[in-house]
């Protein structure tokens, strides 16, 4: 078999031949180093081209298109938070790491940490202790500011509903327009 023509090489490399022709070409490639090198060159080129980073449209593109066809974004602030839950969790993790680092370097007061405990237990005890203290403090603060929430009367339910309605109105008329303007 003579050397493969360029057209044949291209179609073989692109996978457009049926099995019978492919088998014939593969047979030729086993013995012809020149053609094999050319096919390998094409395959390598394909791999490199596919790694070229794609151009991307701006972040607000979809919103702009949807607005032009008359669809208003209905997502609420809560949805915005959910959509961005990954960075939010990431932020918590980073803050946690920084806190632990500061604790170990002594910048944050570590006097409460027992030296004899294992590292994991120490971090856990310290963290759970801080969390319990913070929760109790927050609870006490809520009790002082909103005593009716703890009175077990119907007022507490009404108060919660009012707060939710106010939050929803703020969300709809203040936060959503702000985020929509920012795209």
């Amino acid at each position, binding site marked *: 078999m003579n050397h493969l023509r360029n057209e044949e090489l291209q179609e073989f490399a692109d996978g457009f031949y049926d099995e019978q022709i492919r088998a014939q070409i593969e047979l030729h490639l086993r013995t012809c180093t020149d053609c094999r090198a*050319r096919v390998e060159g094409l395959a390598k080129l394909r791999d490199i081209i596919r790694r*070229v980073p794609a151009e991307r449209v701006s972040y607000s593109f979809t919103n702009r298109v949807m607005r032009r066809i008359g669809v208003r974004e209905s997502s609420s602030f809560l949805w915005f938070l959910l959509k961005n839950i990954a960075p939010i969790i990431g932020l918590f993790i980073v803050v946690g790491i920084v806190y632990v680092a500061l604790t170990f370097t002594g910048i944050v007061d570590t006097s409460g940490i027992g030296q004899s405990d294992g590292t994991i237990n120490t971090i856990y005890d310290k963290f759970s202790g801080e969390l319990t203290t913070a929760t109790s403090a927050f609870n006490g603060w809520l009790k002082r500011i909103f005593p009716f929430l703890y009175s077990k009367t119907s007022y507490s339910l009404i108060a919660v509903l009012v707060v939710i309605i106010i939050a929803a109105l703020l969300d709809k008329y203040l936060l959503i327009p702000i985020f929509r303007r920012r795209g």
Partner: protein
Amino acid sequence: MALSDNEIIEQIRRGDKRRYSHLVEKYKDRAFCLAFRLLKNREEAEEATEDAFIRAYNALERFQNRASFGTWLYRIIYNVCLTRLNSKKGGLKSLEYDEGKDYDEYPLTSQSSLYEKIEINDMVGFVHKIIGEMPERYQVILSLFYFQELSYQEICEIMELPLGTVKTHLFRARAMLQERLNRELKMENAS
């Protein structure tokens, strides 16, 4: 389970316009990539892509499932970009496609040994740069084939060119790219 393009289009036709955002999200970057190759300007390419999506939406009633939504959309983008290029003086010169059937006037030289010596990321950088410097007609064909992952036949439909012409231009584009890449790699090795 994710809906297919045709199922989404069916829902939009039944009045659920919001579903169109799924199609926009799915195709926006690949569509923009094609427009950018043709127009060479970010803002203009983004405007053209946006216009194409609007045109596609308005014509959705007429869309028949003979071609895929992607191919149909790329064809609209291609035409929107050609119209923009046409409105510029001499803008279409570089997009003229000849009937060329002769593959062998372009040597396809492989320099695999050079590839081994260069970091893959550097090579990707070279290829990115070289593609950006190639004539638009080659950039478009490479983009449709490699980035939009279309078949020869789909490229024919988008560009309204005969199959032979598409194959030849794709071949020439690759030969030119390979030749320029080899030159860059030799220079890199020499330095």
